[in-house]
């Protein structure tokens, strides 16, 4: 989905604010949120892609409000998706914890998704040889899937050069929806800043890891 999370190259967010050193969690609730999200994600299928997609679906204004805030809303989406906990249960429990004597709704019916897995983690063996070699010019397809993808808008329709072939991996576009692992070759593709942002841009290169289904041979 082309959501608020896909912010590479967006403007208007202001200057980056430095923090030379900071604790891992700047408030106790953030540590709890981090741990809860990891554990909830494990309980809901240990699918990092599904968790990312759940965070991407947080409404944009809430997404921008705070980091662990959007993680929590993402975890809640993920738990609701699999029928483990409903949003209504969370609201009711929060009210009760705040001292309000509200009724708690019936829990939803769990329908935890199952997906056959080729093993732990995301690195996989792919028996077909890679379609592209280091040095090849590749063109990024203009894909606009409704669901999860790791193909950001700012590289679509651009042409770059394969600089490295990375280990093949579970395809996020499929796995995030528990549709299967569909392992694919992954390429580090390098683009000139001019190709991404036009003639007036700062000179630099941008390297990004793109899954084989995102790419085609450059014309």
């Amino acid at each position, binding site marked *: 989905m082309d959501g608020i*999370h*896909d*912010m*590479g*190259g*967006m*403007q208007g*967010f*202001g*200057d*980056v*604010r430095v923090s030379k050193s*900071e*604790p891992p969690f700047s408030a106790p*609730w953030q*540590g*709890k949120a*981090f*741990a*809860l999200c*990891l*554990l*909830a994600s494990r*309980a809901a299928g240990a699918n990092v892609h599904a968790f*990312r997609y759940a965070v991407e679906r947080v*409404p944009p204004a*809430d997404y921008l409000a*705070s*980091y*662990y*805030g959007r993680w*929590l809303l993402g*975890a809640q989406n993920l*738990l609701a998706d699999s029928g*483990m*906990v409903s*949003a209504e249960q*969370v*609201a009711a429990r*929060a009210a009760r*914890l705040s001292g309000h004597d509200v009724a708690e709704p019936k*829990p939803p019916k769990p329908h935890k998704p199952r997906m056959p897995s080729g093993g732990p*983690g*995301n*690195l996989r063996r792919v028996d077909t040889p890679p379609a592209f070699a280091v040095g090849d010019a590749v063109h990024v397809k203009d894909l606009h899937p409704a669901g999860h993808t*790791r193909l*950001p808008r*700012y590289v679509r329709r651009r042409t770059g050069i394969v600089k490295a072939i*990375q280990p093949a*991996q579970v395809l996020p576009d499929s796995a995030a929806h528990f549709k299967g692992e569909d392992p694919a070759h992954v390429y580090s593709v*390098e683009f000139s800043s001019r190709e*991404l942002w036009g003639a007036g*841009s*700062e000179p*630099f*290169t*941008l*390297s990004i*890891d793109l*899954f084989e289904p995102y790419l085609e041979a450059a014309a």
Partner: protein
Amino acid sequence: MTGAQEHLDPALRVEALISLLVEQGLIDQAAIDDLIKTYEQSIGPMNGAKVVARAWTDPEYRERLLADGTAAIAELGFNGQQGEHIVVLENTPTVHHVVVCTLCSCYPWPVLGLPPSWYKDPAYRSGIVREPRKVLAQLGLELAEGTDIRVFDSSSEVRYMVLPERPAGTEHLSEEDLATLVTRDSMVGVAKVSAP
């Protein structure tokens, strides 16, 4: 989602979620406490700093690190979640690498711990892939004219760590002393390492 749910204080939302999941036996409180403690105490940039100091003092380790980051890092005992495949990018006087995750907040946890707030901030995520020189200056790093800037967007499960330049005037320091100089920011590529 109702308005009430949307606008819960996150500190309250997390308590509600924990309470519900613990009650259902889906998670337990001890696991929460363990995770917090691990990322507060055991996993952080002090791990990456040891890797860097070793690479600075052991040329053969440096070569292994650049050839197969994951394996060389594992030699020092660091691996695990968000570190399945780590690629190390070497900064030199003429080439400067800097790492971002524009789509979320991917970061090499086993060597750097959890990312700092600026790394997760929209200003950094949006800006570093478009105006890296300007964003690095905001972070306090002015790069020499003509530096070859290479931005890496962590969009797959590959994780990137920067091997910063060893600062001049540190020839006499031990590996342990060198490790204390290496900052988190230098291993993301938004700072250089300074001599003490």
